């Protein structure tokens, strides 16, 4: 094969980085042309608000996908954590946060145990666990609408709603989580092991990484971040029911994949997920501004997930894909 010109060669190699960036810019430009208020102050605040919860939950999911597994239960754990906060705020005050986080990490641990120790495909295991999580949430909340109130509720809600420099603090939470996740992925042994396990589990095992234990840690991290997203969601919204996150799975899954973290594992990272979340939430806000119904938005995200999964997956590495 004749050598490609340098610029084409570079483009071919970096298509999963350049593609999402071009898409993000195109989306902003497109919606700006259609609706000039897209980039106004209110538009930007709406964008940032929409982004934050997704970003926190998606960071956890990114680590799982980087190891070549999948966590279906993120949204369900998020919902359970949010409902736990609303249920116990009067009794426990701010102690609901550790409670919700511990339970979320616990479910992450169960996921990891099922995947790593019992050799169950991660998708099936987490789908089953998410069913159990929903059962617990339904048992505790009983389809009621739970609303934050009282002095303790106000304190709790201040976690996410305090405005710093014009933006709500939930935005700073999300940015903090993103930077920490990026640091973990790039500069710590934990992060490097995650890439190694995703890139080649057998090789990682041979080079001395305890692959099973690492998989469990990654699922626990995903559970932790899903729980944190749930806590902040409740603090931000001030109430909710079993309907929390009903429309969340398609955009959440699509945003990780759209950023360029391939389902085959070993590539990607939280910085890619930031890009993906930007694409997905900005197009969501844009479509809502165009008054498209929620259902159509769900359809669009389902299709984006399929297209991006096709675009990013590394076919050289695996011969057989089930």
């Amino acid at each position, binding site marked *: 094969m004749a050598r490609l010109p340098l610029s084409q060669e570079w483009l071919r190699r970096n298509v999963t980085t350049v593609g999402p960036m071009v898409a993000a810019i195109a989306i902003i430009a497109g919606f700006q042309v259609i609706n000039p208020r897209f980039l106004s102050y209110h538009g930007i605040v709406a964008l940032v608000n929409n982004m934050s919860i997704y970003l926190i939950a998606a960071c956890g999911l990114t680590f799982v996908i980087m190891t070549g597994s999948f966590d279906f239960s993120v949204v369900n754990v998020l919902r359970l954590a949010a409902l736990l906060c609303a249920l116990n705020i009067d009794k426990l005050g701010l102690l609901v946060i550790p409670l919700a986080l511990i339970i979320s990490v616990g479910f992450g641990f169960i996921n990891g145990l099922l995947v790593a120790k019992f050799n169950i495909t991660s998708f099936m*295991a987490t789908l089953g666990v998410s069913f159990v999580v*929903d059962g617990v949430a339904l*048992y505790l909340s009983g389809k009621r609408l739970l609303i934050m109130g009282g002095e303790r509720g106000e304190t709790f809600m201040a976690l996410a709603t305090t405005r710093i420099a014009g933006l709500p603090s939930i935005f700073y939470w999300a940015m903090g989580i993103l930077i920490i996740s990026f640091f973990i992925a790039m500069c710590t042994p934990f992060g490097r092991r995650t890439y190694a396990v995703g890139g080649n589990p057998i090789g990682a095992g041979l080079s001395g990484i305890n692959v099973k234990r690492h998989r469990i840690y990654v699922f626990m991290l995903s559970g932790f971040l899903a729980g944190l997203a749930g806590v902040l969601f409740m603090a931000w919204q001030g109430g909710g029911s079993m309907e929390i996150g009903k429309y969340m799975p398609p955009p959440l*899954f699509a945003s990780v994949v759209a950023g360029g973290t391939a389902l085959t594992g070993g590539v990607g990272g939280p910085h890619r997920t930031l890009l993906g979340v930007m694409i997905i939430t900005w197009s969501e806000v844009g479509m809502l501004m165009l008054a498209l119904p929620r259902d159509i938005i769900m359809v669009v995200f389902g299709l984006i997930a*399929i297209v991006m999964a096709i675009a990013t997956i590394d076919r050289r590495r695996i011969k057989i*894909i089930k």
Partner: protein
Amino acid sequence: MKILGRNKLITPAMIQTLKTYPYPLILVLIAFVVMFSGLYPGRFLTPLNFSTTLTQFARLTLFALGPTIVLLIGSLDLSYVGIWMLGGVLVWLLMPILGMFSILVYPLFGLATGFLIGVLQVKAKIPSFILTLSLLFTFAGLASWLTGGVPRPVREYEFITEPLIPRIPTAFLWSIPIIIAAVFIMKRTRIGTYLYAIGSSEEGAGLAGINVAKYKILAYTLSGLFTGIGLIILFSHFGCAAPVDLKLGNVVEPLAAMVLGGTALAGGSGGPERTALGALTLAVIIRGLYLMILLPEVVDFLSGLLIVVAIVIGARGLKGVTVT
């Protein structure tokens, strides 16, 4: 831990016998029936509960038969609920144009969806679960949008499940020929043999001269077709309407029936007859749980737990699968 192991209550030889026994699940099924009959003497072994259990069985089995074929090649097909939802909407939409023939949209739509999934999965090489999951969300969104969020009944097809024999639901009678057809295809035709071979070892099947891509696409297409045919009956059975609201339980329960029946998630072993047995066991368990005086939420929680346990047991020994 004293129960298991050498010189204990249950010896390894007994476990080995249980494992080699054709269908250990039959014992589980009998155990559950005996247990529930003992727990609720006046309520479990009644004609009413009998017909309700058969209805549950028909529902689970008609949903699970098609995806079983895909599970046998080691992949996953979750699109069945999507076909149910969007197909119901299409039947409603095409009713003015096609008249009574519009119910045929179900098998055709199932066939088309299965073929599309097969071509995309095989040619674009993406994990089947993320593909079918995304398609499920897409179909659910479309169904909800096209109907405006309200189920649209088409009151023309109730004759399909008119009661024929008292106490025996017609949906159950219909499910028998469909189960037999699925078992026949998988056990007595070349297609079935090839699909088992692909499930055991895709590489080996390819080396043995089987056109793996073609037969994988065929597996997805068959899955869609079986789902579509089963849905004609279920559509009529559920008051000639399909839901437009996506529920996780509808997706998970047929999966549990397949796994409980003993079709391995890795592919290559199991089959439609096992799925039918799994569906019967799950139907008995669900009925038993509902007869307990419990909150519906507790029943949901318990059945969820049970499904996870079933999946754990069914997926034992699965090794070296990273992306699935």
